[in-house]
């Protein structure tokens, strides 16, 4: 069938225009501003070309580097815990039974509610004075639990919250994946006397690999860009113990009106995210080919 190209592009163009305005232009703009010195409260007005000075400042900025490091730690723990938990739950729950839909709806709950509300409800859980989690730990176990004072506890609480928030997502994707893989190879291996572990190692996990990897990828991207929940739960504190990179930009860089430096920070965050995801992806694909 012959159709004029321009008609197709005409149908595509509204999408392209909207995405160009809100997706591509900001990227080009942040790239541009990052090379300038631009602070509305400084003596020199407007944009002054600064070369790579913003980036030179940035590689020595302890706050920025620390928040990057916190983000990596947070991502590592949150993603691995939610992945293992979600995978195990999915294994247990693969069987069909009455009432399954109800449980699935329950598990889809955290995925749909506003992240900012997730932060709010966890704040109410851990707040000293009346939060049940605080009460259980403090009064029940005699453990001193103050996320407003202990950086480690605040960090662990954000991980716990994120695991609560996203494990159901892992469970649901894994369930979808598990129910899509054929059962015959598994059964055949069982008949041949393979142990449960061998079945997992050589059949289930390899067959699940595409789904597992997709899930890991999405989970890592989500964890890297976390802001809302942590902002509501700890506000980045105490000190900067939970000030992950998104929160660092939102709470520290953005209000400073140091636009050139802020743009450099934003761009470098974008750079690290892209490189990280790309490396991950390359590792995943080459691993899969083997």
């Amino acid at each position: 069938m012959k159709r004029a190209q321009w008609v197709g592009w005409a149908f595509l163009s509204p999408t392209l225009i909207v995405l160009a305005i809100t997706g591509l232009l900001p990227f080009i703009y942040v790239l541009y501003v990052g090379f300038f010195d631009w602070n509305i409260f400084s003596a020199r007005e407007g944009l002054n070309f600064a070369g790579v000075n913003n980036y030179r400042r940035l590689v020595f900025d302890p706050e920025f580097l620390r928040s990057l490091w916190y983000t990596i730690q947070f991502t590592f723990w949150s993603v691995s815990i939610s992945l293992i938990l979600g995978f195990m739950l999915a294994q247990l729950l693969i069987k069909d039974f009455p009432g399954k839909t109800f449980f699935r709806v329950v598990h889809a709950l955290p995925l749909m509610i506003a992240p900012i509300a997730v932060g709010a409800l966890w704040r109410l859980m851990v707040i000293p004075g009346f939060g049940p989690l605080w009460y259980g730990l403090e009064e029940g176990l005699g453990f001193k639990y103050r996320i407003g004072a202990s950086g480690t506890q605040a960090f662990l609480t954000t991980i716990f919250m994120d695991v609560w928030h996203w494990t159901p997502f892992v469970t649901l994707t894994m369930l979808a994946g598990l129910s899509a893989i054929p059962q015959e190879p598994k059964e055949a291996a069982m008949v041949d006397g393979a142990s449960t572990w061998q079945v997992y190692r050589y059949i289930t996990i390899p067959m699940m690999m595409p789904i597992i990897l997709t899930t890991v990828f999405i989970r890592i991207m989500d964890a890297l860009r976390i802001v809302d929940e942590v902002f509501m739960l700890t506000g980045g504190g105490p000190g900067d113990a939970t000030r992950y990179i998104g929160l660092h930009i939102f709470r520290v860089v953005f209000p400073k009106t140091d636009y050139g430096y802020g743009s450099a920070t934003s761009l470098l965050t974008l750079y690290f995210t892209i490189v990280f995801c790309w490396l991950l992806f390359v590792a995943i694909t080459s691993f899969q080919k083997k």
Partner: protein
Amino acid sequence: MDTIMDQTPETEDSPAEGRIGTAAPLHKTRSGGFLPIDTNTFDRYFISVVLLVAIHLLWMRFVEEFIPLFVATIISLILGFIIVRWG
């Protein structure tokens, strides 16, 4: 980021006839370069830019006290050329 989606399992698996209207990708993947992964032209430019930025950042952090930054630019441009040409 193009490269990431370019090679996702789900797009690889989808048969050609399933994707009626989409044309073939502009760049063909080639193997046999010195890079450990198969790359297309876009990938090699992407890698070059990533390395350019990384070299500059690390240079500013650790080396610039001793050697000026333009040396890093020269190094990464040469490296970039090598990667795009033979990677």
